[in-house]
């Protein structure tokens, strides 16, 4: 059959071509030793000072309530589902622990999937808002969809806490029902700059930002803090980009001590990997959007030079939380923002346990809330920003992301 002969001919040709090209090119073998022998060694911090009176979802155990629901709105499917699932598991864990401890106060959880798409979010959130039993919401993970639906929550006076949307503009719309359970870019940017300059002793930095408002907001804040150290080495990449040869050659020309990538792991990992491929020996610093096990999968041993800043506390370090989380997440370790989701739900549950049954009451409760959570101290100012929020440092050590202490 001529088809088969054609297949043989072409594969033989492929074999010939590859071996010819292969031998001509390759001489060395084995790994030329990736990873940056950084001259600065930062000790690993293995245990975390858990605040003694951190609020737990179980609460007093004898709360009474009925017909009250908490909702999760965010991505469960679609291209950026992973971040949403991390948060959802945290929320589910808190609800389960609460319902086990308070037999006669069973709080229901309703899930609304927005696919993280600002176009789909209004339809889903309008439906959520119209269900009167919902009095509190663990909010939308992404800044885009939060912007598209903030007005709807405000109109319904329904409190919604976002564990991950960090764009500063969200708290400038005068919404009284929006609360952010983590530091915004304006906090994390300067902290990252401080970490690069003080801890990593870098005096020439390249800042690479992606095109999401998370990436742009964070890069702007970091650039202000870095000042002239990063003035002449800036570059832009875009979501979905896979090949960074232009950015890599720009960085190799500038020969910086460190690169600060402001964006998500989907682009951060290939960028770091292509940098190390081209022989970059400096440090690769990235924010919470990149701090994820998927970064290690995608970047491989090139991630040896990676450091992370994150306003999030390493959930995996709290052994008790980590084990309980695995029960809910089907064996996955806590991801980025899982602990924030857990803490935020705890605050809503404490509100319900204190007898609040209506939306206005819960909004008020959250507005005046002042207490420790596992991840941080929760106290909000008038606009919904956390009064104080600490940023934590991490680094990659032997293929694992480890905690290296607080930055500010």
């Amino acid at each position, binding site marked *: 059959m001529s088809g088969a002969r054609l297949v043989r001919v072409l594969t033989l*040709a492929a074999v*010939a*071509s590859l071996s*010819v090209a292969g031998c001509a090119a*390759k001489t060395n073998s084995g790994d030329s030793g990736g990873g940056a022998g950084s001259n600065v060694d930062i000790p690993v911090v293995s245990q975390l000072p858990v605040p003694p009176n951190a609020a737990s979802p179980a609460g007093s155990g004898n709360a009474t309530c009925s017909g009250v629901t908490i909702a999760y709105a965010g991505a469960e499917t679609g291209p950026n589902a992973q971040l949403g699932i991390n948060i959802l598991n945290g929320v589910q864990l808190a609800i389960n622990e609460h319902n086990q401890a308070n037999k006669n106060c069973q709080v229901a959880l309703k899930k609304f999937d927005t696919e993280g798409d600002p176009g789909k979010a209004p339809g889903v959130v309008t439906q959520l808002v119209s269900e009167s039993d919902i009095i509190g919401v663990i909010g939308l993970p992404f800044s885009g969809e939060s912007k598209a639906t903030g007005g709807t929550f405000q109109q319904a006076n329904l409190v919604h806490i976002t564990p991950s949307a960090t764009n500063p503009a969200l708290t400038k719309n005068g919404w009284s029902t929006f609360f952010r359970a983590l530091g915004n870019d304006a906090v994390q940017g300067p902290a990252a700059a401080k970490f690069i300059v003080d801890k990593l002793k870098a005096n020439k930095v390249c800042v690479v930002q992606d095109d999401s408002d998370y990436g742009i907001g964070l890069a702007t804040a970091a650039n202000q803090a870095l000042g002239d150290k990063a003035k002449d080495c800036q570059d832009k990449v875009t979501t979905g980009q896979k*090949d960074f040869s232009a950015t890599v*050659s720009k960085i190799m020309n500038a020969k910086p001590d460190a690169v600060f990538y402001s964006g998500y792991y989907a682009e951060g990992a290939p960028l770091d990997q292509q940098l190390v491929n081209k022989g970059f020996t400096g440090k690769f610093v990235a924010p919470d959007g990149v701090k994820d096990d998927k970064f290690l999968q995608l970047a*491989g041993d090139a991630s040896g030079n990676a450091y992370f800043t994150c306003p999030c506390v390493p959930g995996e370090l709290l052994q008790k939380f980590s084990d309980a989380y695995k029960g809910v997440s089907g064996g996955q370790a806590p991801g980025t923002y899982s602990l924030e989701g857990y803490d935020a739900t705890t605050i809503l549950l404490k509100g319900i346990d204190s007898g609040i049954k209506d939306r206005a009451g819960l909004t008020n409760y959250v507005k005046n809330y002042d207490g420790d959570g596992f991840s941080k101290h929760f106290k909000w100012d008038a606009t919904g920003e956390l009064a104080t929020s600490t940023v934590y440092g991490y680094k990659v050590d032997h293929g694992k992301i480890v905690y290296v202490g607080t930055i500010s």
Partner: protein
Amino acid sequence: MHPLTTFLADAWINFDVGSLRDQFWSNTFDGLTYGAIYALVAMGYTLVYGVLNLINFAHSEVFIVGAYAVFFVLSGLGFGPSAPALSIGALVADLLLAMVAAMLVSAAVAVILERVAYRPLRRKGVPRLVFLITAIGASFTIQYLIFIWRGPSAEPAVIMFRPEAVFTVFGADIDDQQLTIVAAALVLMLVADVFVNRTRLGRGVRAVAQDPDTATLMGVNKERVIMLTFLMGGLLAGAASLFYVMKVPSGVQYSGGFILGIKAFAAAVLGGIGNIRGALLGGLLLGVVSNYGQTLLGASQWSDVVAFVVLVVVLMFRPTGILGESLGKARV
């Protein structure tokens, strides 16, 4: 200042000629590498268009399926995000295994695609609009089958070897990865060219391309030739997918093929649709030009925009492409 002028002022794209000048040669070599991959994929478009006068939109998915085959074979062989410690012989053997697998998988998908989606339509002699709509439908069906099977995000990176500079030309170094890809692509294109122009089967392809009815009268089994055309397009696309994964290790994603497919089609048109040597020339040229555009205009998207602009310009001023349509005459 009037709001419109401020709007236009920041919209003005500044041409970063400086960085283009000092990265010119590295851009060229990198562009040639991408061009080689575009050329191999463009072959699929050129062959099918030459014979069937049909844009096979689903060819980009035939390509990405090959990339998944490469990913599975290599990760099965122990490759992963970090460069493997293998001797040359073992490395080349593994890569060949992956390439052959990719070629066979892609070819299989291409043939099945022709059999299931296009043959019933060809039998009924439907207008061209129907073919195009089916091709788009097929492209999305395969794409979103992969989406549901492997999920939205890209597969973990599969590093084949860390590229090292072999020699420097005009101050820009050429690494072994670029050499391998361009050399292998040239060899494969040569084989394809010889096959179409020298062998009996190749004559069958050219005959059907020129005039399908007369070719059938002359005893050429038209159906087999068409199947053969898809088979060849698939084989070459499979080989291209190995080089793509070599160049962009974290590029194995359900949507990875679509834009690359359009750029490969632009390359095929640039070279002269239906013209095998045109596919090679068009591919290399498009790879280089879109790389320049990317550096000149400062953002990676510009390489796609430049490719589309080239396609439109070529179609307007010289629809038969640089080398002219050789396989089939430009049938309306």
